[in-house]
């Protein structure tokens, strides 16, 4: 675990001025309460903010950022804190600007299939609001019942069903953004289809380094009429990977293709989340199709044939909503169940070409063995997005070192296979060190200049994404 230096406490004058903008309940500076904000979902890194500010409108965010600029304070935007890259870590005493109070669905425009929301709206709450109108918001990160849409924008989040429907950026049509200067900028908008550069596309996935999105326009899609789900049980994870390649090679486009490996199955089945997967299985593959009801059964049958041709020892097809939920349970509860295996885990997020999955998975297994670590894999197989979970106990410093070494080796294998370092979790603090493995110096320079265009003072989520000097030096460089 990396614990960064504790920051100086916020000066009382500044705290008072922040309260005058957002109200007494909108500023947290009590160290005991700040502990809640010391890490995001990647608990490997921890550090306390100097304060947390919780504005409730675009105007309040603007006033807060103007004040922080005047005081020369760095800041970090934070949604629900479910991120997995240390992206919301308030390094160097940054002030956290939380979006929890900005949780309103501002507009639901059914006719034009769009919604306008504040950034603190929880992902799943949007689809709950649109379902009665036959519409859904497609991106569905595994944390969708807790993660905020603002966080999804920052990370360009994916999810199991992004294989068919695409990731967050495809659905963002417009943004209201507050820059570090406090200026409010409107980017895009459903009314606009102009020829200017795609600043919305650039902002999505910028990990809070460009500014804070305070209003978000999103596209909605029709809810599929029907869904079919099957579960293939395999002797090995390589066989499951081959089934994935076979399904895709036959021209099918499932809504989801998810693999759970043997270690994960055993953890789930030993937990309160037991899903009925065979405990001796080498891997399980969840395949889901959706769309018009007619024809879906044929798709499922073809996918079942692919599984059997790839060595599946059993194929289960859900006959009801309850059975579907049961087939998914082993996948959806996997992270929760891993707590039985070890007190801590480090989840990787590399993406590789789908056809390289079997060999990459084999190498990951060997790396784990070589370092004496348990590695459990749960991942989006259809788009090659791996999530090897390295399980450890943070109190064992030698084991922590082995985790770091294994993590580096896994990343190298994925890059060697033609992949990249992160598919949906973002770079944050955790993967900065790998950026130079996938980006040339020229590209990294270009990224620095792009950040400067939005954030010339370098106070917006400093020390993230770019593999630079400590953030204070980085700021001097700008």
């Amino acid at each position, binding site marked *: 675990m990396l614990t960064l230096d504790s920051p100086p406490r916020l000066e009382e004058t500044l705290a008072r001025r922040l309260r005058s903008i957002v109200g007494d309940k909108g500023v947290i500076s009590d160290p005991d309460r700040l502990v809640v904000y010391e890490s995001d979902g990647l608990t490997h890194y921890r550090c306390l903010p100097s304060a947390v500010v919780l504005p409730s409108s675009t105007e309040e965010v603007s006033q807060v950022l103007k004040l922080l600029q005047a005081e020369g304070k760095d800041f970090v935007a934070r949604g629900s804190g479910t991120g997995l890259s240390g992206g919301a870590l308030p390094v160097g005493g940054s002030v956290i600007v939380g979006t929890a109070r900005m949780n309103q669905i501002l507009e639901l*425009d059914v006719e034009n299939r769009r919604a306008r929301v504040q950034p603190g709206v929880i992902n799943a709450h949007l689809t709950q609001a649109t379902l009665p109108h036959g519409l859904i918001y497609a991106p569905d990160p595994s944390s969708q019942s807790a993660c905020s849409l603002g966080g999804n924008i920052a990370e360009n989040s994916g999810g199991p069903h992004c294989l068919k429907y695409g990731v967050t950026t495809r659905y963002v049509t417009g943004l209201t953004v507050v820059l570090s200067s406090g200026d409010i900028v409107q980017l895009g908008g459903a009314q606009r289809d102009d020829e200017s550069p795609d600043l919305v596309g650039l902002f999505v996935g910028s990990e809070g380094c460009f500014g804070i999105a305070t209003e978000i326009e999103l596209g909605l899609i029709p809810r599929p009429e029907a869904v079919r789900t099957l579960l293939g049980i395999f002797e090995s994870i390589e066989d499951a990977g081959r089934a994935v390649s076979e399904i895709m090679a036959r021209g099918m486009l499932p809504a989801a293709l998810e693999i759970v490996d043997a270690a994960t199955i055993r953890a789930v089945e030993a937990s309160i989340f037991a899903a009925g997967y065979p405990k001796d299985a080498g891997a399980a593959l969840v395949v889901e199709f959706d769309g018009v009801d007619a024809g879906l059964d044929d798709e499922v049958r073809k996918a079942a044939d692919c599984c059997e041709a790839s060595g599946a020892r059993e194929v289960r097809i859900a006959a009801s909503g309850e059975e579907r939920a049961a087939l998914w349970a082993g996948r959806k509860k996997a992270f929760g169940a891993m707590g039985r295996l070890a007190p801590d885990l480090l989840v990787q997020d590399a993406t590789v070409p789908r056809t390289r999955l079997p060999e990459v998975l084999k190498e990951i297994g060997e790396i784990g063995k070589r370092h004496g670590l348990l590695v459990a894999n749960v991942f989006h197989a259809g*788009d090659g997005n791996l999530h090897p979970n390295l399980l450890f106990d943070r109190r064992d410093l030698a084991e922590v070192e082995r985790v770091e070494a294994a993590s580096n080796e896994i990343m190298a294998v994925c890059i060697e296979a033609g992949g990249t370092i992160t598919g949906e979790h973002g770079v944050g603090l955790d993967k900065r060190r790998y950026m130079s493995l996938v980006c040339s110096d020229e590209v990294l320079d270009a990224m620095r200049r*792009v950040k400067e265009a939005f954030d010339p003072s370098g106070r917006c989520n400093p020390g993230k994404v770019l593999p630079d000097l400590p953030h204070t030096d980085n700021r001097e460089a700008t």
Partner: protein
Amino acid sequence: MNQPLLETDPTRVLDRVAGVIDRAAVSESDGVTVAAPQTEMEVSDLLSVASEEGWKVLPQGASIGPPKYRASPRGEGPRFSPAPDLVISLLGMTEIVDYQPADQNVTVRAGVTLGAIQSLSSREQQWLALDPPGGNEVTLGGVVSTGLSGPLRSQYGRPRDHVLGLTVVDGGGRVLSLGGRVVKNVAGFDLVRLATGSRGAFGVITEITFRLHPRAEADRTFVWHQGDLGEGWDLGRSLMVPRVPVAAVELLLGRWPSPLEGNGARIVLRLTGSEAAIQRTVDFLSEVAGVPDETFVAEASEAVWLAISEGLGDRRVTFRLHTLPSRGRSLAPALAATPFERLALHVSTGTFRGTMADGEDLEALFGLAESVRGLGGTFGMRGVESGLAIASEPEPSPAKARILRQLIRAFDGSGVLPGAWQERWGASVSPLA
């Protein structure tokens, strides 16, 4: 950047360019030097020289070139638009670098045509699900640079949703390899999105990796003939119900090439998927709209959409407008007053495209532009023969204009690329609004 526009000696441009790339790949058109590099390094060398000399550079695929004039729809123009000193034609870069059917991606040089990729990938029952104006002859570099999409946008998205990676040469000649070959990639800021649709503002696109899609088991197009624009629009919108997952739906007016003969209003709707799903959907649509007047199957269905794409891409006056779909109906009077040759109204997204014959009264378009502006939408137009272009885009706020300027500087410190010297976006000059 933003230096005064100095006269450049064309002879010097020609001489210096011929010193960088093979003389046979250098030509002249209307007094402008045209260089057709074969490699990325040649593009890099050309831009390095241009940067030293302060030339205005225009990257070009199979396009019609820059407008000669720009005008305001409020009648304040037209005025001259600066001509480039050097055109970099990507038509010589036609290599298909890598095709991985099993991973459903293809990497091509910028001068490869859309048709070439469709032909290659169809052997593996795959396709690049894009249908921008211009048909199969458009270059993929041009498609990505303009970001233009067609009717398939409603189901498959825009070019930005298909591009996995790009190689771009920036204004200083630096080669930037952006993105990669995997479908999910959030390693750093999304410079692929920034470059896509930016019309060369941030660099010359030399290589692109696209995501391909499997071809569906069945492809059907259905046509319903309608009385007029208003009736057609209403019918099209009535088909936009959640249970109908259409690949594309257009309201067409005017004269279109074969197989879309006739002159009336027509709703043209495309379904792709399994035979069973399409039949079920058609049964439902027939309840809403009646039995289709025409049906096109498989290759004939593809031919319909190719005709629409080609019909909007030929070299006449073309215009494009966009508004919320729910507001599209209110544009019917202004559209009816426009002497269009053909119109394609994208029912699900609110993007309308049209063509006019050159020589028609362009003033008529100003009224349409005003109507679109009144709805909060956007309007653009260009005429090839007249060389006139109109862009009705909102003036960016000072903060947004500052960001655009800084972004252009970040990739083009010498101001040689179109984002710096063309009249766009309020970055180098005020927008025409």
